[in-house]
């Protein structure tokens, strides 16, 4: 691909503004992983089925495999790399680690971000609400129970902290 075929994209990712030249057909998933080196965002289908590629856009869960970066100019993208506050893990991250809610860890980035979006809008969700929010993020290892428990642990510790 010659440089002439690329387009300039401005993105705000994890609070930082970046400008890059990318082929116009690249998805947000590909740009995050390949051009910005943010490999914490995963993929499982690239068809919008599994949610492994989930990130937050303006605080809401968003499938990066279906999004074109050009459409997201001026919006706020958050990936798993932006979830911790400096050296301090987000309470959800700490709870997932402590309770063994990350087995292979492959679904974990999307699961955590999706849970964060839930807690940001509903700080004390019921088990049912947690289930509903995380239902689209497929996990093949855990059976989900530890994940639900970890979200509840984070809630009990004040996850908005």
């Amino acid at each position, binding site marked *: *691909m010659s440089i002439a075929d690329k387009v300039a994209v401005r993105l705000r990712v994890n609070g930082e503004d970046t400008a890059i030249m990318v*082929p116009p*057909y690249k998805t947000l998933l590909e740009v995050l*992983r*390949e051009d910005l080196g943010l*490999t*914490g*965002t*995963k*993929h*499982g*289908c*690239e*068809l919008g*089925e*599994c949610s*492994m590629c989930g990130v937050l856009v303006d605080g809401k869960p968003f499938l990066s495999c279906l999004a074109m970066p050009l459409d997201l100019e001026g919006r706020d993208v958050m*990936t*798993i*790399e932006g*979830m*911790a506050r400096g050296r301090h*893990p987000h309470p959800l*991250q*700490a709870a*997932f*680690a*402590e*309770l*063994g809610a*990350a*087995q*292979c*860890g*492959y*679904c*974990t*980035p999307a699961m*955590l971000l999706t849970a964060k979006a839930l807690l940001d809008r509903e700080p004390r969700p019921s088990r*049912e609400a947690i*289930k*509903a929010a*995380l*239902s*689209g993020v*497929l*996990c*093949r*290892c*855990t*059976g*989900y*129970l*530890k994940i639900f428990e970890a979200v509840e642990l984070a809630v009990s510790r004040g996850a908005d902290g």
Partner: protein
Amino acid sequence: MAEAFSVVGKPLTKPDAFGKVSGQVKFADDLSLPRMLYGRLLRSPYPHARVLHVDTSRARKLPGVLAVLTGDDLPVKFGILPVSQDEEALAREKVRYVGDPIAAVAATDEWIADEALDLIDVQFTELPHFMSIQEALAGQGEPIHGLSNVHKAVALEFGDTDAAIRAAEHVREDIVFFEGNTHLPMEQHAAVAQYAADGKLTLWTSSQTPHYVHRALGKVLDLPMSRIRVIATPNGGGFGGKSDIFAHELVAAKLAIATARPVKITLTREEVFYAHRGRHPVLMKVKTGFTRGGQITAMQFQSFLDGGGYGSYGVASTYYTGALQATTYAIPRYRFEGVRLFTNKPPCGPKRGHGTPQPRFALEIHFDKVAEELGLDPVELRRRNLPSPDSQTVNWLRITSCGLEDCINKVVEGSRFLERRTSMPLGRGLMPHSEVQLKLDRNGGVLVLCGAIDIGQGSDHILAAIVAEVLGVALDDIQLTTADTDLTPIDLGSYSSRVTFMAGNAAKAAAETVRDRLFRVVARSLHCDADELMARDHRIYRSDRPAEGLIFAQAVQLAEAESGVVTGSGSYTPPKLAGPYKGSGVGPSPAYSYSAAVVEVDCDLKTGEVKVPEVWIAHDIGRAINPMLVIGQVEGSVYIIARVQEPDGARSARHAHLPG
């Protein structure tokens, strides 16, 4: 001692947990090297066809394409089992399932590689295909391999089952079909290969069995093993699906050699289904003789396995469908006949409980029906046929402890089963050989080198916990390097729930070797006997006078000053347990784990739609090194089998494609 252990048995956070929750753990596809190319595979659109001609000339001319390979570039056959070397990285004469790889391309990006695949012209002649056990047996048309579609046939008999069944007070026969299913790890397989200027090939791969991949690369590429390094990356789910040698691994390596540039191949989700090696569909016939009181007098078991297009682990899978019947229930006479058939579908292999869930399914259905006929409650029928601890089964398997009765009691009570219905126990066990090496540094840090890769089950934690416990240090003091064929000693792989037991015992032995050396030095300096010492809380001290001792790091320094770097190795070889017959190597285990479950099932009688509101499950697993990880494994295994606990409203229909 009130607290016998300081690390083992505690629900501690595993060492890789924070790497995982921060997204920092690097899976294979997360790796990227300078000048890296992307590889793609052209796959067969036909289930069974002769490959007449592969024309790659147009693909080669596409700008951005650096190499195109066909079967002639990789002519050496391979397979995971020495007896089944029937696969080619790229098919040469014939394709045997939709998805069988034929050619490969390396290009500067994946789009160009895909475009190049479209430019490869392949001429096929279609052959009649075999899509089921019955079609394969009927054998109309050219067999998939060799002269017949029978890949493996085994027959074993222990005692005169015909006579016993003739004499039995009650006999029942059932035919049961268990549909196959696939692992569906969330991470697609990926491999990155690099061929350095010094002629050394390195392959990073999402594999449960890097040492097997190492061996196959040596064979297929005709390179000395010392020029190849295989590093297994953390697996984003394995479940048995990453424990074979895959075409994309060999092809990535060959493309890297051909282009002298790093090459990455990541399978698409569709390709993961072609890679498969999932649980075999199995057609089973079971015939059992009972006394009127419900005691088994003899069993005859037949299995037909739908193997898919290649051998893979199939010979072992075949034996497994018949190996463990008599470890779960006491069966005094037993006949097993197993046949694995080639079919034109992606090859089957091992998945969580290799080859044993299928017969377990058949037997438990069979027993429920027998219980009804004999007027016994199904739990009671099982209780009357429990194997005894410290016994030998009729097919020469040694049972040590057996917690099956406890498991049954627990789930029966927990679920109030007797007021409800249905029961299903399950047994499993397996295989050999692990080694672990340790190196201690002067600050008291411990480097653990082990060939086993963490596939999400937490094996890194298990190894670290065992070493920390033996040496009396903390988890934080342990540094792990795993599954790197240059650095770590051989390990057969992370499959069949073997790592905790095999690599865990090797880690324990290695740590004890090192501890003994430290104890000798410390004993000399404290003027006591080595066996008066203990290691705990970063100290080595006299157990009767805890104040007298040395800090762990001081002990290491002392030992190092005396005779060099403190290292040690340990290994685990299972005892020779096989019986005196061919095929007896499949099934023996130094320790069987038992399990019982009660499953509540709601079935919509109009639509047949099934829901599983609750599962009670008990496992006899021995000591839990980390109970939290054990519970996680059990919950995950229930879910993967029963598809239960699916969050409400999930897009469940697409989640996993078949029952089991």
